[in-house]
């Protein structure tokens, strides 16, 4: 049951990675998609990241009831959870909703209105032209969004901690800088790249094989978000298990 769609997905990816007809056209598409996927998502990622950091600080402080544990640990927990889990994974899930649904509905609409057929008649490799630029753009911009998210999440935690009095400025900064391991950033970036690939490829697959009309485009779009989210969480576990 799973093998048929998996095979189709692999064949679609194989076609998407075929040599482009003209690199300069693809380059323009990549830049266009980078604006759409990256710049277009900065605002939403920024907002959720600040709140994620704030909530993490407040809830960690609530659970720290022992006087033997220094308050600076709050900064450390906010830092590590933002880098390792919250920023890459929550950002990816939000982007699966925003970017994934957009990719699936865009490609799905092109399918049902025969625009993909028109590309193929012209002799253009439609998976390559439609999917590859989106994948490359996402793989470049989503890690950058995750870096922004990490910074804003830690900042949000700092603001919430100091404003509420749960932790002092110095304690938070001490905790956020103490025992920092650069490898956690590597893990975060590996996750971001894998999630970017999942979001664009799964959504493009759902859109590319849409058949019917407007209703089916909507169904494909919803399915793209659901499948992407499940795949992101599965990949999150696999990466954590392998790298940590």
């Amino acid at each position, binding site marked *: 049951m799973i093998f048929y769609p998996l095979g189709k997905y692999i064949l679609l990816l194989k076609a998407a990675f*075929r040599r482009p*007809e*003209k690199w300069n*056209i693809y380059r323009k598409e990549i830049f266009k998609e980078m604006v759409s996927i990256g710049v277009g998502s900065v605002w939403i990622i920024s907002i959720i990241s600040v709140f994620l950091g704030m909530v993490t600080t407040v809830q960690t402080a609530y659970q720290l009831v022992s006087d033997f544990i220094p308050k600076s640990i709050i900064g450390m927990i906010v830092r590590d959870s933002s880098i390792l889990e919250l920023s890459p994974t929550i950002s990816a899930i939000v982007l699966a909703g925003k970017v994934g649904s957009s990719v699936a509905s865009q490609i799905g*609409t*092109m399918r049902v*209105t*025969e*625009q993909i*057929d*028109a590309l*193929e*008649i*012209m*002799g*253009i*490799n439609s998976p390559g032209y439609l999917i590859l630029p989106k994948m490359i753009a996402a793989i470049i911009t989503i890690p950058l969004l995750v870096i922004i998210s990490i910074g804003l999440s830690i900042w949000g935690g700092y603001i919430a901690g100091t404003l509420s009095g749960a932790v002092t400025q110095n304690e938070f900064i001490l905790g956020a800088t103490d025992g920092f391991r650069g490898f956690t950033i590597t893990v975060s970036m590996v996750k971001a790249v894998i999630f970017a690939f999942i979001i664009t490829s799964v959504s493009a697959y759902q859109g590319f094989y849409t058949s019917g009309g407007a209703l089916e485009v909507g169904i494909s779009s919803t399915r793209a978000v659901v499948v992407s989210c499940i795949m992101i969480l599965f990949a999150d576990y696999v990466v954590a298990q392998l790298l940590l």
Partner: protein
Amino acid sequence: MIEIKNIHKTFGENYVLKGISSEFKEGMNNLIIGGSGSGKTTLLKCMVGLHEPDEGSVIYDGRDFTRMNFEERIEIRKEIGMLFQSSALFDSMTVEENVMFPLNMFTNQKRKEKLDRVNFCLERVNLTGKNKLFPAELSGGMKKRVGIARAISMQPRYLFVDEPNSGLDPKTSIVIDELINEITEEYKITTVVVTHDMNSVMGIGDNIIFLYNGKKEWEGSNKDIARSESKELNDFVFASRFMQAAKEKL
């Protein structure tokens, strides 16, 4: 010339094309007609490679398209122009960008040369000055004409047209038919039109094949239709009272 030999196509249990063979001649309007579900669009899609026939071959001037791989097909596809039923214009692009798209993809011309070609094609379909409009701003007839301009931008040897008159008023339909006819004669291209519009059949049908239940039931020109003894063809062509009256006058 395009030859099709013994084309068979099934979708699951549904046997759509049952061994169709024919020849589509250069400089002529070759029409594929038939009722809904008779297999005419499937045949067209098999000819251009959007569907793979289960059996049989499609031969473009001696080149067997069905036996070619993806890369080899690209060379033939560069010689193909197609107008889709829904026009299939790229929504995110202006009229100019739509018509210029194949030129951008497959030529190394300078922008000025490409723009000249786009303007020539738009002028040819009577859409001069509409370069900056988006498909959403065009009427159905204008979309079809932009589709034709895009199809001829690469100077194709073969033009495929799927239901050119669907959704158009009779007057606009005649304009589109005349345009297809003029382009075919002017550039001596092999044009294949799928239609069930009787005005098109009588107006531009130089060579017609009639499909019935996935088989070729009849072949001839528009002048031969009235003399045909095929019951299925007569039932199809002269279904309306208007056409019956026209036949009686003939």
